[in-house]
């Protein structure tokens, strides 16, 4: 066997070993730390994501946890982990069980026999205050640390979310209504407050949210992550026009910053590429409550570049595209409106 064949065989063995190790024995703790802890914290105390205490996990099935991982909560920050293998999902569930020293509570897959019409009346009386008329959870914000309404122990669940409804069988919803969830402040409605039949009616109404799901407006097929505009003006005039338009729209403009500034020395930096950075702190503060991770796309910026032929272009992020990366419907709604403002500013500057 020559050296090249030996090297190839060695590489194959090493790669196979690594691959086999990764597939055969996923480490639930490591996977949890990698994928879950940023939002739920390492001990499950909750942060951007909801807390995961033993009391909660003891009241749900492993199937519910698996489906929750797979489907996430569309529009509510929790992503759908569709690329994890079944073994990896099982490992995370196993780790959660071990950490909380709980076993699953299994529910029947059979739908309950309830009347959604009567359930709506009861829901309006008992549930709207926290879960909202549309079941999305009252109040602004998506997490428990930065943005939650402090009068709640946790943000009320979005029980109309398609990820929740696809994960939770009727029996589980029935039990939560009956016994409540003390750790979250959710009261028990079983016994004196509601009969079993009434609880079933509420379950039927909650299930009816499946037909009422409102998804954000989808992106157009040809929508790009950035808008690029040609300016009819020279570089200096374009910069001046953009600043004037931003000031007129009540934005505060930060000091000019060249695209290459800080990346190279002052003599080499291209002075014909500039980012006009701007902010409205009042709006920003409100948006950070809705989406604490917004910093990764801040500050707002319009980049103006002079090309070799002297023509000038402006580039602006397409907020409709960017906002959808956050899986946060509240942000999508806000930024779809903000996008219109940005377009107006650039159009005014390039008229």
């Amino acid at each position, binding site marked *: 066997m020559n050296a090249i*064949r030996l090297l*190839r065989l060695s*590489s*194959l063995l090493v*790669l*196979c070993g*690594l*691959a086999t190790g*990764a*597939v055969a024995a996923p480490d639930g703790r490591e996977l949890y730390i990698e994928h879950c*802890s*940023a*939002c739920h*914290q*390492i001990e499950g105390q909750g*942060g*951007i994501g909801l807390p995961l205490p033993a009391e909660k996990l003891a009241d749900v099935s492993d199937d519910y946890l698996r489906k929750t991982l797979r489907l996430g909560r569309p529009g509510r920050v929790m*992503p759908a982990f569709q*690329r*994890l293998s079944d073994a990896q999902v099982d490992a995370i569930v196993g780790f959660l069980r071990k950490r909380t020293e709980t076993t699953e509570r299994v529910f029947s897959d059979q739908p309950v026999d309830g009347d959604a019409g009567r359930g709506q009346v009861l829901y309006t009386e008992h549930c709207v205050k926290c879960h909202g008329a549309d079941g999305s959870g009252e109040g602004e914000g998506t997490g428990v*640390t*930065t943005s939650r309404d402090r009068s709640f122990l946790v943000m009320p669940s979005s029980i109309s979310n398609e990820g929740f409804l696809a994960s939770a069988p009727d029996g589980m919803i029935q039990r939560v209504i009956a016994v409540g969830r003390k750790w979250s402040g959710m009261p028990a409605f079983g016994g004196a407050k509601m009969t079993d039949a009434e609880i079933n009616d509420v379950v039927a109404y909650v299930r009816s949210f499946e037909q009422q799901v409102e998804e954000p407006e989808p992106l157009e097929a040809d929508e*790009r*992550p*950035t808008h*690029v505009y040609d300016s009819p003006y020279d570089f200096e005039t374009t910069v001046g026009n953009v600043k004037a338009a931003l000031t007129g729209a009540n934005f505060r403009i930060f000091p000019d*910053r060249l*695209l*290459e*500034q*800080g*990346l*190279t020395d002052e003599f*080499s930096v*291209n002075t014909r*590429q500039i980012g006009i950075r701007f*902010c409205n*702190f*009042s709006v*920003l*503060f409100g948006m*950070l409550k809705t989406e*604490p*991770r917004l*910093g*990764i*796309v*801040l*500050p707002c*910026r319009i*980049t103006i*570049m002079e090309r070799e032929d002297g023509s000038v*272009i402006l*580039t*602006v*992020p397409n907020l409709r595209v960017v906002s959808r*990366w*956050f*899986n946060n419907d509240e942000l999508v709604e806000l930024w779809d409106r903000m996008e219109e403002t940005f377009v107006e500013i650039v159009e005014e500057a390039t008229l």
Partner: protein
Amino acid sequence: MNCLQAKGLWLAVMLFLSGFAQADNMLMSRIPMRAELVLEYVKSSIEEHGYTIAHLQLCDGGMKDFGYESDLYRVVFFGKVDEVRMISSRYPELVSYLPLKIAVIAEKDDTLVTVLNPEALSPFYAEEEIQIQLGRWHSDLVSILEDVRRAIGKRIAAAR
């Protein structure tokens, strides 16, 4: 190498690389340490990966100046000038996403380190050159976050 061996090697490589393919739109890491210290580790790791830090944005300071109280919230901007020049010359619409940036956000005694996954942009481009560039940034960012986590883990372990 025969055809069977080649197929085996390809499969092994794909399985090995599949860890990097699990791309969400955001990369996040929670660090059980105060944000001021984590910020220093983030800056070091960025530089150790061959990037230059362009500037540091003090979001919390900016908000405080206008009366909005916030915990530490900083954004580190960084890049490689050659990459920025290549992108601005050939793919100007990507310039809006440069320099790269990592947000360091205090959450009580913990810190969230979060960054947009450059591969979120992949579906919008067919060009191989961009796909390679986005993949390289993604790998570097994953590595930066892992190094920060590892370094701080060692520090915490040493302190115990």
